[in-house]
Structure formats: structure tokens, C-alpha cells
């Protein structure tokens, strides 16, 4: 029983960075901008966060720095694709490659460095409850923040005027433009928000989850987050669910191995990707549903006045 509780706890922790990045990308994409640079933004944020945590000793300042680093990368991306109209796919891929190289270069001096003592976050009272305590209430605060962020983003997109404008821009930037909305600025804001969330996710990985910096630390989680948004048909709760599913299957396969279950480890390490995609593809397979939720202008540039 206790092992199940610990498995749940590990699942939540494992899914949190993927969920944060996925939510950020969702905001991006709802505004019609596809940023394939998630992996690069997360890497740069991870090294920035680690460096700041190393020098200040504060995880929260570090995650702020991660957000800023992610935003800086996103700003460059946004300027290129929104104002200069460069191809979003190519620019995003370039951002990923640049982020990988840049983070490795900047991070050289931080490889093998150690952060100060990690804090334990137990919620007083709740953490000592049997089963649910170890399962849900001994998490890093970021785990709860990710859930609150999902709630907030879902509310923003579907219940607020700002969200409506954002989605309108994602559906038809031309119409939004003629209604007087500043399409490019709003798109940039969405891109920056996406960068910030990816940045927090990257910093969470290097400062809390690993906690260390090495080249390529993010190890594909940015790509997973990107795939998640599509397979979750751009619904915030499904992104969160998909992230937990991904984390959960990752942890379950380790758990099974530890229990001596005989499955090829190569197959097991493929399982999280496979399971996440299959489940999300199944719950999101309705074409009408995809059509309703997919931002119609996704990936298309917008030129005011054209």
C-alpha cells in the first residue's frame, strides 16, 4: 500500500515539469503560434535556473530566473516569426538546436556543481495522514502550482474575455485584426507566457528534480510537452492528465522492474511515450472535437494589412 502511495507521489513529481511546459505551449498555440523550440528554451532556463540557485541558494529566485531565460528565448523567437514572418517550424527547430548548444556552452562551469541542501516540503498535518499523506502532501510546491496553473489557464481561455481574444486570434488573426485587436502584440504576449512556463519547467528540472546541471538535462521532455498539446487537443486538463500519465507510466515501469517483472527494458522505456500517445489519441479521436479545439491559424504567419 505504501509503495502505491510513493508511486503516486513520484508520478506527480515526474509529470509536473512536462505539464508546465505543455501548458505554456498550449497558450502559444491557442494564439496560433507553434513554437518547436520548447526543448531549447527549457535547456537554457535549466542552466540559468541552476546557476542562479547555485549563487543565491534560493530555489524560487532560480525559478524566476528560469522563467526570464525562457522568456528571453521566446522573445527572440517571437520577434522573428511574428514581425519578420520567418517560418515558425524552421525557427522553432533552430531555437531548439541553439538552446541545446548555448546551454551546454554557458553551463560548462556548472557541470558537477552541487546546490545547497534541499528543503523538504511536507504540508503540516496532511503529510502525516496514512496513504494520502505520502501520496499527495509531501510534494514540492511546484506540483500544486502546476495544478493551479492548469485551472487558471482553463479559466482564462474559456471563461475570460482575454482568453476569448487569444483564441479568436488563433482562429482567425485577420478577423481579430479588423476588429481592432493588436494581433502581433497579443501573439507575442502568448509566446512570452509560453516561454516563461517552459522556463519554469526547465528550472524545476535542474534545481528541484535532478538537482544538477549537465548538458542535455531536459532529455526530450520539451518534445513530449509539444506532442502532448496536440494529442490533448489543446485542452488544459488533458495536457495535465497526459503529463501525469507520462510520468506515471515512467515510474510504473521502474516499479515493475524493481519487482522483478520480466519485460524487455527497451520496451519498458518506450512505454511512457507509447501509452501517453495511445491514451490521448483515443480520448481525443473525435475529428469534430479536434476541429473545434485546434487553432485554425496554427503555424501560419500573419501580416497586418495583407
Amino acid at each position, binding site marked *: 500500500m505504501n509503495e502505491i502511495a510513493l508511486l503516486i507521489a513520484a508520478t506527480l513529481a515526474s509529470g509536473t515539469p512536462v505539464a508546465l511546459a505543455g501548458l505554456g505551449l498550449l497558450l502559444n498555440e491557442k494564439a496560433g503560434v507553434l513554437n518547436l523550440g520548447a526543448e531549447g528554451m527549457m535547456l537554457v532556463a535549466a542552466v540559468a535556473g541552476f546557476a542562479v540557485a547555485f549563487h543565491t541558494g534560493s530555489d524560487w529566485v532560480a525559478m524566476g530566473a528560469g522563467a526570464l531565460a525562457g522568456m528571453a528565448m521566446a522573445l527572440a523567437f517571437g520577434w522573428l516569426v511574428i514581425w519578420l514572418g520567418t517560418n515558425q517550424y524552421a525557427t522553432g527547430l533552430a531555437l531548439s538546436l541553439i538552446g541545446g548548444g548555448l546551454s551546454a556552452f554557458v553551463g560548462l562551469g556548472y557541470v558537477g556543481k552541487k546546490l545547497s541542501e534541499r528543503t523538504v516540503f511536507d504540508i503540516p498535518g496532511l503529510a502525516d495522514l496514512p496513504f494520502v499523506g505520502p501520496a499527495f502532501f509531501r510534494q514540492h510546491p511546484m506540483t500544486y502550482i502546476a495544478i493551479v496553473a492548469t485551472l487558471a489557464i482553463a479559466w482564462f481561455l474559456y471563461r475570460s474575455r482575454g482568453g476569448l481574444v487569444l483564441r479568436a486570434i488563433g482562429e482567425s488573426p485577420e478577423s481579430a485584426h479588423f476588429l481592432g485587436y493588436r494581433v502581433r502584440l497579443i501573439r507575442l504576449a502568448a509566446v512570452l507566457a509560453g516561454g516563461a512556463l517552459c522556463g519554469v519547467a526547465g528550472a524545476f528540472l535542474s534545481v528541484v528534480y535532478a538537482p544538477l546541471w549537465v548538458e542535455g538535462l531536459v532529455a526530450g521532455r520539451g518534445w513530449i510537452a*509539444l506532442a502532448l498539446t496536440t494529442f490533448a487537443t489543446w485542452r488544459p486538463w488533458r495536457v495535465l492528465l497526459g503529463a501525469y500519465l507520462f510520468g506515471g507510466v515512467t515510474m510504473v515501469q521502474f516499479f515493475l522492474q524493481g519487482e522483478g517483472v520480466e519485460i524487455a527494458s527497451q520496451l519498458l522505456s518506450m512505454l511512457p511515450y507509447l501509452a501517453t500517445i495511445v491514451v490521448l489519441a483515443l480520448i481525443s479521436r473525435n475529428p469534430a472535437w479536434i476541429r473545434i479545439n485546434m487553432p485554425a491559424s496554427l503555424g501560419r504567419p500573419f501580416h497586418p494589412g495583407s
Partner: protein
Amino acid sequence: MTEMNKRFLLKVAAGAIAVAALAGCGKSEPPKAPEPAKKAEAAPPPPPKPEPLKAAWVYVGPVGDAGWTFAHDNGRKAVEAEYGDKIKTTFVEKVPYGADAERVIRDLAAQGNKIIFATSFGYMEPMLKVAGEFPDIKFEHATGYKTAPNMRIYDSSFYQDAYMAGIIAGKMSKTGTIGFVGSFPIPEVLRNINAFTLGAQTVNPKIKTKVVWVSTWFDPPKEAEAAQSLINGGADVLLQNTDSTAVLQTAEKNGKFAFGWDSDMSAFAPKAHLASAIVDWSGYYKRAIKEVMDNTWKTERTVLGVKEGANDLIKIADVVPEDIRKKVAEVKDGMKAGTFEVFTGPVLDNTGKERLAKDAKADQAWKDKVDFYVKGVDGKIPAAK
């Protein structure tokens, strides 16, 4: 949404999955051109002296990885210190396996290096190919098994470290369950798991080892997850065959014990760190260079271990009781003298089958073919034939 648009999106999604899957399978680095060979600092050679011998190293990681590549580079530096201006060393780091490796090794050969060291398993085929094209240059490959008239192989014996770590783990485990984070189920790693278990059994015959495979040499978050999973399953002393400090730090977070691997990792987990398994390549590199200088170099296979001063278990923590330190010291002395062999029969696998007869000592051929868990290790080896 247009049809065109939908198709494009599917393509992008498929691409993202492909990249993610690749990243999941192993280290995925964007294919980038290897950096130009860095020249190591050397004293300006006075003109009348003879040309220095040129030697080159090919590394799989960055020299600052605090692990495998770092150890090799320390060996290169020791060579420089030893031979001074009689030698000129070069290294190329982060060389990907495959076509890039072949090109880098060929470039180094063409640049007049007389001996080239490739320090990772995946360089075996590329090096073999280039060795055929440059018969006058000596090629050295770490951890492989193929040789040529001008290419030889060398390796270390981390299982000796793992055995000594096991002795400590057997004592320090309160739950009677120890854990191992494995990279890939290859003989080298299986040897380490088995040696770790055998060592622990000398202190606590009932000890159980749980193994989790991560299918990567280097993915710190994944290593941390695997370690967490072992700890959740009741293991309280961990060892790993992966290259980062993540396992050790996860143990620290959970108030459990673990070991450093590849280099001294004591600073990363002051409370959890029990000892670090290391390897020192400098002796071998100095010898190889000398053989080229003296023209006595010949194709052979060298397996370094504690005896050659290559492998060692260092920085044993203060929490380890005195009698256990003594026991480790005795084993180490035995290894140094060449009288102690980790795999001495009877060795039973975990199905009860005898793999090594009573009192028999394992030879190199036996060690090369380890494909089983010893008694005491839980589970089956994934994808075993």
C-alpha cells in the same frame, strides 16, 4: 481548418514524437560538427630538439563531465606531465558514434598523430576502419573487443570496485535490500551487479538486490526516477552504472545511502555518500606512449584493475564501521596481490544453476560472457536470450 493545415500539423506531431522517442532511447544530441581539436598547452618547443611524439584522444563526453571522460582526460594530462616536450597531445570531445567518429579519427591520423586513443565502446568499428587505412599509426580502443595489427584494446575492472562497495552496502543496509540502477544489460554492467551482490553477501548472506534499467548512460532526471523507485521499493543502499550524480543525490534526499561512480562524488551527498568507485588511466597511457617511443608496441588486450592501480574505491565515509573498512582493505590487498578473485566458485545464478564450479576462478573469457544474475538478485535480465 484546411486539409493542408491538418496534414502539416500531423507531420509536426509525428516529428515531435519521433524526436521524443529518440531522446527517450538514449542520449540525443543535435548532430553538430565536432569542435576543432583543442591543443593542449605545452611549453614552446626549442627548435633544435627532435619532433615531439603526437598523441590524440577521442572522447564521448565533455571533459568536464566529472565522470568517464574526465577520468580519461586526467590520464592524458598525466602523460603530458610525464613526457613534457617529448610529447604533444590533442583531444576531441563529445564525438558522436558513427560517421562523425570515423571522420574525427581519420582527421587525427592525417594530422600526424602517432597514437590515437578512442575512449568509448561505440568507436570500435570506426576505429577499426581507419586503422586499416593507416598501418603506421597505433590505435587504442577502450572497452571494445576487436583488434588489428595496429589496433589494440584496453579496459578496466569496475566490478572490483562494485564488490568492495557491496561489502559496505551489506553492512549499511537496514532493510536487507540494496538497489542497482543499470544502464544496459551488457556483460560489463551485469558483472557489476553480480559483484555488488556477492560483496554484500559476504556481510549479510540474506541480502537481496533489486535492479532497475534506465536504458541510457546519462539522463539525470531518469536516473533520479529510477533511484526513487528503488528506494520506494525498500532498497536503502544504491549503486549505479550510469554516469551522473543523480542517484547519489536522490539517496541523499531520501536519507538513504549510495556510492559515487567514475569519480569522487563525495561532495554531492555528504550524508548519503559511502564511497566512490574510480578508475585511473594514467598508468596505462604512460605505458602505451612509452611503447610507441621505444618501438615495443604490440597488439594485445589489457585489462586493468585494482592490481594495476587503475580501479579503486576511495573516500570511504566515516559512518562505515571499522571492521568493514578493514574487510574492504583486506579484499583490496588481495586484489592488489592478485590472489583474490571476485568471481570464485561456486557461483550460482538466481535460478539456482551453477555457473562456476567450486573453487574455480573466473577467467577473462568467463567474465566477457556474463549473462545472468547471481543468486540474491531479484528478477530476470530483460531481453536475455
